[in-house]
């Protein structure tokens, strides 16, 4: 007994000694996979602010500066903080395996990197990356039932996103947490590096300012540096939002919208479409959210871009042969398919001529496809996630159908060309599941009485489909029962929210906790639920469940089994042969 206690003490002490709080930290982090020739900032942080004489950094046993062929810079007490830092910004390495050691007194930290080459010749002329933000298995299944129909256990058609030859499970964790956010997860696709929540194109070091953290190159920057390919960034979220921003941005804080607009301007993707216009306007323009006098509408115009603010203007630009387009269709997010088609709520009255993601995709491909050097297009259906946060599953599933329509347009373009890699993937998932149908005809007065499970989960009686595969009525007597696994205090109604996006909870007067939105608590079937999330949550949260990736075209065969999200970058980089100086 005593011996066991002694052993446990030793183990505990040993573990405490291994905690990373006081050890050297090396960026890029352990097990980083780095594209050959891509730019990255090398940084080592040493705790307790040692002098340069007290530390040593080697790569494969040689001084780091020798391996990089460039001098490193050492700063004691970086930014007045209690650490010292060794930097090399804009480092590159040839392909190979690297062991980086940072020694400080008796402490040695070690990370390993794999710098990977990409085989020539390039296999894909074009890559189209579709990101269904937050798209989970239940979204797909519900979209398939709603949009294709279900009879006697079989679907009456396949979704375009399902009907692809290759598939993989994708895990989306960040370096700091099992469950991540859309900034960090999109960053994994566009850089191939694992980083932390809220980060775009950077590792999360100790720097005080959000733009100073160690950067890694985005796929847009690699493409612009190495080739004459054109680039499109298309979303129905705000263009500064995490997923589209990951194409161009380097910041520790995804909410740096004004900086992100400037980063779009610096990288200049050829086609840029989404919402979020206020951060393009100088502060003197009413409606601006900028804090300076920079007018990015004028700057993009001067750089040769056509500006579109409506679907009509977008289509006119595409039809007239425009090659560079800045399309901003809403001051906030572009309205989702449910509001554009059925409910007409949200900001549809204010912005009556907004394109949806499928229409944007068609226009973007039209503008990009004539480039003989090929194109890279990222398309996000951004509100699958946002509507899942607000537990408004019908809106989330309508935007899954919208993504499916966009993918169909891309597949029609790819056709028999066999030169276009198409990938469809979520950036993370939500805790959402399809468990049966609510049937108003079932006996009982409570919402749970109306829930048909197992043998009682009958097909829904939604209205007939419109030409684009959306049901024309979902507020019917027998409806899918889609439930969320995470929620604040809220009231379920079991019905679609025809008067506008669901608001599940509201902040209470103390500014800390959230309480159910009483507007949903008074209907005939309204059911009060005690939340299962921390009290500061006012909406559903992301899950750590794997997401499903489907793919077709050259390179797609590499997707199988289970892969980390960073692998998506690697497959795209290999298909386009982006490695090398």
């Amino acid at each position, binding site marked *: 007994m005593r011996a066991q206690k002694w052993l446990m003490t030793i183990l505990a002490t040993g573990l405490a000694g291994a905690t990373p709080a006081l050890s050297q930290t090396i960026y890029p982090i352990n097990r980083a996979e780095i594209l050959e020739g891509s730019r990255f900032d090398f940084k080592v942080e040493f705790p307790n602010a040692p002098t340069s004489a007290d530390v040593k950094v080697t790569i494969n046993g040689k001084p780091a500066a020798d391996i990089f062929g460039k001098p490193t810079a050492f700063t004691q007490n970086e930014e007045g903080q209690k650490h010292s830092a060794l930097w090399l910004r804009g480092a590159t390495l040839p392909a190979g395996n690297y062991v980086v050691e940072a020694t400080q007194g008796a402490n040695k930290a070690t990370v390993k990197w794999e710098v990977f080459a990409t085989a020539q010749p390039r296999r894909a002329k074009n890559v189209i990356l579709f990101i269904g933000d937050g798209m989970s298995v239940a979204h797909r299944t519900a979209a398939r039932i709603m949009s294709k129909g279900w009879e006697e256990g079989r679907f009456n058609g396949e979704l375009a996103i399902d009907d692809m030859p290759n598939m993989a499970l994708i895990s989306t964790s960040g370096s700091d947490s099992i469950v991540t*956010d859309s900034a960090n997860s999109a960053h994994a696709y566009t850089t191939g590096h694992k980083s932390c929540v809220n980060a775009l194109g950077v590792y999360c070091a100790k720097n005080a300012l959000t733009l100073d953290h160690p950067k890694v190159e985005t796929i847009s920057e690699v493409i612009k540096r190495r080739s004459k390919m054109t680039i499109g960034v298309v979303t129905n979220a705000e263009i500064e939002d995490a997923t589209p921003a990951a194409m161009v941005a380097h910041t520790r804080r995804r909410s740096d919208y004004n900086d992100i607009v400037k980063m779009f301007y610096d990288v200049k993707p050829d086609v840029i479409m989404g919402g979020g216009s206020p951060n393009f306007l100088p502060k003197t323009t009413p409606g601006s959210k900028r804090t300076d006098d920079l007018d990015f509408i004028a700057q993009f115009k001067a750089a040769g871009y056509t500006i579109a603010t409506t679907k009509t203007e977008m289509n006119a630009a595409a039809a007239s042969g425009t090659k560079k387009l800045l399309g901003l269709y809403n001051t906030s997010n572009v309205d989702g398919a449910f509001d554009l088609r059925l409910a007409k709520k949200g900001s549809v009255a204010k912005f009556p001529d907004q394109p949806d993601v499928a229409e944007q995709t068609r226009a973007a491909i039209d503008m990009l496809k004539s480039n003989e050097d090929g194109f890279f297009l990222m398309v996000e259906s951004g509100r699958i996630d946002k509507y899942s946060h607000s537990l408004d599953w019908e809106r989330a599933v309508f935007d899954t159908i919208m993504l499916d329509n966009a993918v169909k347009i891309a597949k029609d373009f790819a056709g028999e060309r066999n030169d276009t890699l198409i990938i469809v993937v979520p950036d993370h998932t939500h805790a959402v599941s399809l468990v049966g149908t609510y049937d108003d005809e079932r006996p009982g007065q409570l919402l749970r009485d109306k829930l048909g499970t197992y043998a009682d989960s009958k097909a829904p009686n939604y209205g007939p489909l419109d030409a684009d595969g959306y049901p024309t009525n979902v507020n019917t007597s027998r409806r899918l029962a889609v439930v969320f696994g995470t929620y604040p205090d809220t009231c379920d109604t079991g019905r679609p929210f025809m008067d506008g996006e669901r*608001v599940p909870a509201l902040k209470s007067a103390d500014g800390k906790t959230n309480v159910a939105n009483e507007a949903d608590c008074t209907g005939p079937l309204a059911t009060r639920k005690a939340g299962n999330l921390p009290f500061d949550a006012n909406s559903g949260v992301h899950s750590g469940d794997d997401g499903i990736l489907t793919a077709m075209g050259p390179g797609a065969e590499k997707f199988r089994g289970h892969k980390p999200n960073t692998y998506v970058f690697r497959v795209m980089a290999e298909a386009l042969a982006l490695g090398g100086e």
Partner: protein
Amino acid sequence: MQQPILLARLSRRGLFQGLATLAFCEAAFADEAAAISFDGLYKSFGVLGFQFSDRATSLRGQEVRMLGYMAPPLKPESHFFVLTREPLAICPFCQSDADWPVDIVVVFMKAVTPMVSAGQKVAVSGRLEIGSAIDAETGFVSQIRLVDASFHVA
């Protein structure tokens, strides 16, 4: 909602009676601010910016009343809060993936005041300020403000 009722009563009264009460009412109205709605603030509202309405422009610097919803406040007691047209599903102060609607009105109170639940509809009175401003303390950017304001639950 007192002001419209008073006005309606006035219009139904006879001229003499009306004139007789006018002096009294003028005194009362001097404290009553002009009501303006969220929609009434703008003449046009486009992706590339909006134009303030003539009425909003004419009320600049004057005492006005607005109805709206208190956005989730930064602190339970504060000297400022954000007034929104609709109740907010999100808390832009607390979530990095949430952004403010473009048509917010920022309310700076006369004094630090306890906030109410974010679901509450509130009536705010304050002096109307128009034009871009950045709050020195919070860095918050606003186009329309009510300053030296007070509010009550509507």
